């Protein structure tokens, strides 16, 4: 349905707030030239109206609790409610980050404990919890690699190697840290082409950023060779933890040869994605890199208890203010304590089982092609290229049509090396029936594509709104209500 914007719901004079009185009615003069004179066009609503508005908006949004959400690469697993309950403890919300460490022993202990779990899970020796998200973690990691080389006087290492199947954040983060990005092609198996890698490494190589399993959901089975090649050239190996859910509790990036790892607490560790954030992207390093981590680290000694350790001599500095997304960290630790050793292992096993179950069930359906190997880890990438060729129905259309079945679409058009990619990651928290229904829907769409392609191309038909015109959005940007009003006034838009 339609919900007006909050500006349209506004009526002059309504109030939705209460505020305590000031301590004393002291007159404070704001310098004339600073005093606000421009209009403050904020909406005016009562609390019941605010609540109804956002309740209705929420009902126009699809989340993990609404059904299957197999958005590849995003690990949209169930977010346990106990995480939320713990995160709403007053000891989380009402604590100031600059409090004397004796008054925040609980918070520091939680950070310290999480670090211990993550170390064992990744095979790394030290962690920072500061990064706010995966990409922030990547930036942290590559900055550490940069600092390491520079610290050793190795100033020529300006190139970061990135496979062509990598997440876009990898090259972007490397570039942000000042590296030149060198792309490594994949081989016919969908994994890193060793020969190309051999040719690419040199004394300019700072490192290689790798996801394993990679974004095709395929395990880089030559990982030990890859590590050898990069290390031998003097580079370091960076692990993009976006796909850790495939090997959680079974295989450690540290054992694969990685020197730096970032994790996504909002993917692997069940913290909610919040419609785009907050996430949390801890970064772990092998011992020889720990002096480069951001400050502060969390330390513990018996006398002092838990403390913030700013004594990191070669630290890269800070990658965000303060200590990280603490409210997310608390949720992840809650999850870990509930799952435990065996639970974590079962997570990856079932995530992988579910993905392969889906792969095998869907495989052979007309119009969808399964490129590269059959054996996948936690996700699989099909190509709708044959369907597009034969019927004109694109991956985008398939995605939109899935919405009509009350299901969320897969990630589409990524990784770039697969044409018309449909990247499906069911995760371990969906049931077999949900996977079966998803496969059924994809099969039905295939049938429709070959018999009645219009119905697919014009999808969605049952979603909150019809297909959204994103080309228009970019051509005629309307990025705030203020812009909208101006454009309407000028008669430039009719919506």
């Amino acid at each position, binding site marked *: 349905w339609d919900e007006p*914007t909050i*500006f349209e719901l506004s009526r002059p004079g309504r109030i939705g*707030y209460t505020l305590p009185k*000031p*301590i*004393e009615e002291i007159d404070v003069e704001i*310098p004339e030239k600073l*005093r*606000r004179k*421009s209009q403050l066009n904020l909406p005016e609503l009562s*609390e019941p109206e605010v609540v109804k508005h956002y309740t209705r908006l*929420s009902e126009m949004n699809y989340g993990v609790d609404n059904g299957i959400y197999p958005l590849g690469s995003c690990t949209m697993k169930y*977010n346990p409610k106990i995480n*939320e309950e*713990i995160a709403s*403890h007053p*000891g989380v919300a009402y*604590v100031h*980050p600059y*409090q*004397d460490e004796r*008054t925040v*022993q*609980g*918070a520091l202990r*939680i950070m310290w404990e999480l670090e211990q779990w993550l170390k064992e899970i990744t095979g790394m020796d030290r962690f920072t919890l500061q990064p706010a*998200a995966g990409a922030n973690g990547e930036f942290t990691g590559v900055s550490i690699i940069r600092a390491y080389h520079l610290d050793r006087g190795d100033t020529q290492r300006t190139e970061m190697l990135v496979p062509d199947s990598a997440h*876009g*954040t990898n090259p*972007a983060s490397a570039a942000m840290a000042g590296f030149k990005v060198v792309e490594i092609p994949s081989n016919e198996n969908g994994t890193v082409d060793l020969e190309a890698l051999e040719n690419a490494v040199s004394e300019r190589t700072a490192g290689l950023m790798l996801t394993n399993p990679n974004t095709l959901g395929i395990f880089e089975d030559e990982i*030990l060779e890859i590590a050898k090649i990069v290390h031998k050239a003097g580079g370091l190996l960076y692990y993009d933890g976006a796909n850790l859910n495939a090997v959680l509790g079974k295989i450690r990036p540290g054992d694969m040869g990685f020197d730096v790892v970032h994790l996504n607490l*909002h993917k692997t560790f069940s913290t909610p994605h919040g*419609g785009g*954030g907050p996430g949390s*992207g801890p970064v772990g390093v092998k011992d020889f890199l720990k002096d480069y981590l951001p400050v502060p680290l969390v330390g513990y000694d018996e006398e002092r208890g838990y403390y913030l350790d700013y004594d990191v001599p070669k630290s890269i*500095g800070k990658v*965000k203010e*303060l*200590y990280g997304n603490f409210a997310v960290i608390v949720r992840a630790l809650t999850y870990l304590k509930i799952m*435990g*050793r065996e639970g974590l*292992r079962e997570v990856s096993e079932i995530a*992988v*089982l579910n993905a392969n179950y889906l792969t095998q069930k869907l495989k052979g359906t007309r119009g969808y092609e399964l490129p590269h*190997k059959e*054996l996948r880890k936690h996700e699989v990438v099909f190509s709708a290229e044959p369907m597009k060729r034969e019927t004109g129905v694109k991956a985008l259309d398939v995605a939109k049509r899935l919405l009509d079945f009350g299901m969320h679409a897969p990630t589409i058009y990524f990784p770039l090396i697969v044409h018309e990619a449909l990247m499906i990651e069911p995760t371990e928290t*969906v*049931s077999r029936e949900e996977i079966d229904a998803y496969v059924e829907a994809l099969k039905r769409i295939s049938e429709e594509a070959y018999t009645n392609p219009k119905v697919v191309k014009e999808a*969605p038909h049952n979603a*909150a*709104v*019809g297909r*959204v*015109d*994103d080309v228009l959005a*970019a051509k005629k940007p309307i*990025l*705030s209500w203020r*812009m909208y009003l101006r454009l309407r006034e000028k008669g430039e838009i009719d*919506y």
Partner: protein
Amino acid sequence: MGRHYLPNSAHKDEMLKEIGFTSIEDLFSDVPKGMVQKFNLPEGKSEYEVFTELSEILSKNKTVLEMPSFLGAGTYFHYVPAHVKYLIERSEFLTAYTPYQPEVSQGMLQALFEYQSIIAELVGLPIVNSSMYDWGTAMAEAALMSARVTRRNKFIVPKALSPEKKRVLGTYTGGPGLEIVEVPWDERGQLDIEKLKEAVEGAAGVYIEMPNFFGLLEENVREVGEIAHEAGALFVVGVDPTILGIVEAPGELGADVVVGEAAYFGNPMNFGGPRAGIFAVRNDKKLIRQMPGRIIGMTKTADGKRDFVMTLQTREQHIRRAKATSNICSNEALVAVAAAIHLATLGPRGLRELGEIILKNTAYLKRRLGEVGEVAFDGVNFKDVPVKFEVPYDVVHERLLERGIHGGYYIGGHFPELGETALFAATETTRKEWIDALVEALREIISEAEL
């Protein structure tokens, strides 16, 4: 443990069989031998046990509800109305991801568009992204953007800047090799205009804050902007948005880019995170093209209905990869929505009133602290007040803590020229009895120390 989250745990064998495998290990046959490990981790526990264990650990934190605290310096105890918390905990918002499929994500898209729109009204610039990680990273990205836009590599900041932000800026600008130049404060704690003029040549951007790190309103914002513009630099203003009901929108004062902290609305302190960085620019194609972060735009459906979608994605990493305007992917969407809900609740009158209350409470705090210490600068303070003591501040701090009061944030370490100075802060949540108790305690502490 954990099987209660794993519906197929009971069906592994059947499922394997159905797809022609015999064991889970078959699914990992591509993993090099010996790489699969037994981990040295604790066993899982029941929800009840974890609930009590973590509740007990968290109870070891002393909250600002239990202990009067005068900490500020970039993090403030504001009250979050209960309905804001309730609404963002609705799982349709909470458990969704980035709205890649707009047709089933109109709720989050519209909420974020409203966030952008509300911030646009506050800061006086029409283009706002849907959040950065926090104020610090937003400022750092503004520095990088200034460099891209101007093709220069010097960025000017006040010396009176939070140490947090300075370090973030340093890390972000290290790779591209930006030069960061600090301009000192004058005797009134204001940015030294003359020194700025000396430094500005060749700058990509000039950054100033309102209020500044000492809690002072910078009186010459407009002039600073003019100086920046004259030198061909972008003018970047960092703002605590809770002041914007009473202080002019930075966009109206000449800012090209506005950054700030959105999480001061609608979000608790959370020991420092999550936050949400404000990032806004002038309606200028050159700036928009170089802007980092997700942006939600309004558009229409095939049948002409107004709706919302992520837009201008060609700036972003998933399209442009190494040439993106930023690497940011996950942002702080929910934090931003919480801020928007809080701001929609406050409305123009509430925001103005909030600003006035904080101004008055700060003035009360300042007046009372003036009785026992030396208020470092003349001027109008908002939230933070720097106060210098005769007694070493660590002693003051220790004695206050003994009395169940948490004093201010010591800044003498970062700015040795200020001596034993700490920032004490007030907001709308500060109670008179707290301040009175603080001043009483300080009086005692000082007179004890003098003995």
